[in-house]
C-alpha cells in the first residue's frame, strides 16, 4: 500500500498533485479542531478586516476569523460530501449488485424502485423536506435525504456491471465453492465495481455539495453548522460581493475549486491505476 502510493506520487504527476491537495485538506481538517473560536460564535474579532498577518484570510462581517471559519467549513463540507457519497454508494451498491446478480423478479422490483427514485425531482423534494422537517432539517438529515436521492443513477450503472459479472465463470466457481450470495457480492464482485464507485463518488460529491450550497444560498439549511454553503450564505446576506469583502466569498470558492480539482485528479489517477489499459497508455508517453 505504502509503496503503491509512493510510486504513484513519483510517477504520476496528477496523483502527486491530487495527493498533495488531499494532505492539505486533511491538514485543514485536523487544524479545524484547534480553532481558537467556537464555530458558530460571532463578533469574536473585529469585522471586515482584509487579509493580513494576523488574519490570514481576513475577517468576516460577522466578526469571525475567515481562516478558522474556512477550516471548520471545509471539515464539515468534506464530512457532508463524504457522508452523502458513502451512504448513497452503499445504497447503490446494495441495490445494483443485488439486482444485477439476482436478476428476475428481484431485479424488476429493485429497478422499479430505482427508477421511481430516479424521476423524483431533487430540488423540489429537498425544498419540501425542508418545510416538512423544519427544525429537524439539520445537517445530518440533509445527508440522509441527499443519500436517499442520489444513488439511483449509479445503482443502474453498477447493476449493468453486476449483470456481466454474474455470467463470469469465476462466479460459478464461487457458487460451487458454497459461498453465500452476500459473500460473492461483497468479496468477488465488489472489487470490480470499485472503479466506478470511485468515479461516481466525485460526481456525487460535486452534486451534493452543490445542492448544499444552493439550498444554503436560498436559506434552506441549518445556519449553525459552518459549511461552504453557509459561508456563502452569510457572505451573501452581508452583501460581501459588492461591499468589497471579497475574501469572504473567495475563500470558500477557491477552497471548493481546489477540493474538486484534487478529487478529480485523484479519481482520475486512481482509475488509471485500477484500469491497466489506461495505465499502459500513459507509460508509453
Amino acid at each position, binding site marked *: 500500500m505504502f509503496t503503491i502510493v509512493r510510486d504513484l506520487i513519483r510517477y504520476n504527476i496528477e496523483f502527486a498533485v491530487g495527493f498533495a491537495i488531499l494532505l492539505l485538506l486533511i491538514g485543514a481538517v485536523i487544524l479545524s479542531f484547534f480553532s481558537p473560536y467556537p464555530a458558530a460564535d460571532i463578533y469574536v474579532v473585529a469585522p471586515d478586516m482584509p487579509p493580513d498577518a494576523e488574519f490570514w484570510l481576513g475577517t468576516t462581517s460577522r466578526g469571525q476569523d475567515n481562516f478558522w471559519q474556512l477550516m471548520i467549513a471545509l471539515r464539515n463540507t468534506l464530512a457532508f460530501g463524504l457522508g452523502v457519497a458513502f451512504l448513497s454508494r452503499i445504497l447503490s451498491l446494495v441495490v445494483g449488485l443485488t439486482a444485477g446478480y439476482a436478476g428476475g423478479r428481484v431485479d424488476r422490483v429493485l429497478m422499479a424502485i430505482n427508477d421511481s427514485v430516479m424521476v423524483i425531482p431533487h430540488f*423540489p423534494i429537498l425544498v*419540501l423536506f425542508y418545510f416538512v422537517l423544519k427544525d429537524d432539517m439539520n445537517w445530518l438529515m440533509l445527508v440522509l435525504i441527499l443519500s436517499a436521492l442520489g444513488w439511483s*443513477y449509479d445503482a443502474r450503472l453498477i447493476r449493468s456491471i453486476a449483470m456481466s459479472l454474474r455470467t463470469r465463470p469465476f462466479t460459478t466457481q464461487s457458487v460451487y465453492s458454497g459461498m453465500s450470495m452476500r459473500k460473492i457480492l461483497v468479496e468477488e464482485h465488489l472489487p470490480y465495481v470499485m472503479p466506478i464507485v470511485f468515479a461516481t463518488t466525485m460526481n456525487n460529491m*460535486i452534486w451534493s455539495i452543490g445542492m448544499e450550497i444552493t439550498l444554503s444560498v436560498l436559506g434552506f439549511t441549518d445556519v449553525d453548522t459552518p459549511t461552504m454553503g453557509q459561508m*456563502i450564505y452569510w457572505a451573501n446576506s452581508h452583501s460581501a460581493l459588492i461591499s468589497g469583502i471579497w475574501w469572504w466569498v473567495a475563500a470558500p470558492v477557491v477552497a471548493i475549486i481546489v477540493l*474538486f480539482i484534487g478529487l478529480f485528479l485523484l479519481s482520475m489517477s486512481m482509475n488509471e491505476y485500477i484500469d491497466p489499459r489506461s495505465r499502459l497508455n500513459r507509460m508509453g508517453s
Partner: protein
Amino acid sequence: MAAYMIFVARRFAQLLLVVFLGISATFFITHMTPVDPVTESVTAITNFGKSDPEAIELMRKTLTELYGLEGNLFEQYVTFWSRLVRGDFGPSLSAFPTPVSQIIFRALPWTVGLMISATLISFTIGNTLGALAGYYRKSRILKIISLGLIGLQPIPYYVLAFILLILFGFVWPVLPITGGYEMNADLNLSFALVLDIIRHSILPAMALVLVGAGSWLTGMRALTSNIVTEDYVTFAELGGVGSTRILRSYVVRNAMVPQLTGLAMSLGAIFNGTVITEIVFGYPGIGTLLINAVHAGDYSLVLGLASLSIIGVAIAVFLIDILSPLLDPRIKAE
C-alpha cells in the same frame, strides 16, 4: 416490429407505474408540510392591515371551505388523481381560483427554452472537448481547457452567476442583467423581440453552460479514453482510416449512447438548475414559482410542478429506453 411494439408497451406501462409512484410520493410529502395554505393566506391578508381576531377566525373557516381542504388526506388524494387524469391540477391555493396549469404554463416556456438551449450548448461543447481531450491525450491546450472547465464546474452557481453579472452588467456593461426581455416590451412576435430575448438570455445561459460543460467533458473524456483502447478502434487505425473519421464515426459514435441517456436525464430534470438562475438574473420561469408555492403551502402548485418534472424525467427516460435500441444496435429490447 411486433416485438418492438410489445417492448414499447411494456416500457410504457413501466413509465406509468414510475410516474404514479413518484407523484404519489410527492403528494404525501407535500401534504406532510406543516405549512397550512389557509394560515398562509390569512397571514398574507392580515400581515399589514388592521386585524380583528374574531374576523380572522371567520376568514380561516371560509378559506378552508373555499380551498376544498376539508376532506381527509385519502379523499384529497383520490380527488387529486381523478383531476390529474383529466390533465387538471386543480386551482392554486395561493392564487385561488386561478388554475395551477394556467400559472405553470405561463412560466414554463421560459424555463424550458433557456434550460434546453443551455443544456444542449453545454452538451455540445463539453462532449466535443471531452472527445478531443480523450483522443488527443497529449495536447496541452486541450488539457488546459479541460482543467479550466473542470475547475469552473464546482464553483457555486450562485457565485459564478453573480460574477458574470458584475462583469458583464456593471464593469463592462454590455448585457442586460435582468428579465427575459426589456421592460414594457411589445410581446407580439417580432424580430426585435426575438433579438431582445436572445440578448437577455446570454448571461444566464452562459452561466449555465460554464458550470454544465465540465461534467459532460469529464464523462466524455473518460468514455473516449476507454473506447480508444477497443479493438475496433485499433483495427481502424491499422486499416489506415483517417483520424477525424475514427474520432467521429468510431469513438464519438460509440460514446454517444451513454451520453445521450445523460442528456435525456438532464433535459428531464430542468428544474434543478433553474431557481438560482431566476433569482440572480430575474429570468422568468418556474423556479421562483416553486419556491413561492412551497413558502405559501400551496400544495396544488407544488404538486403540479413536481408532477410535471416527474413526468418530464420519466418521459425522457422512456424515450431514451425505446430509442436506445435504435441508437445502439447491440442493445436488445428485453
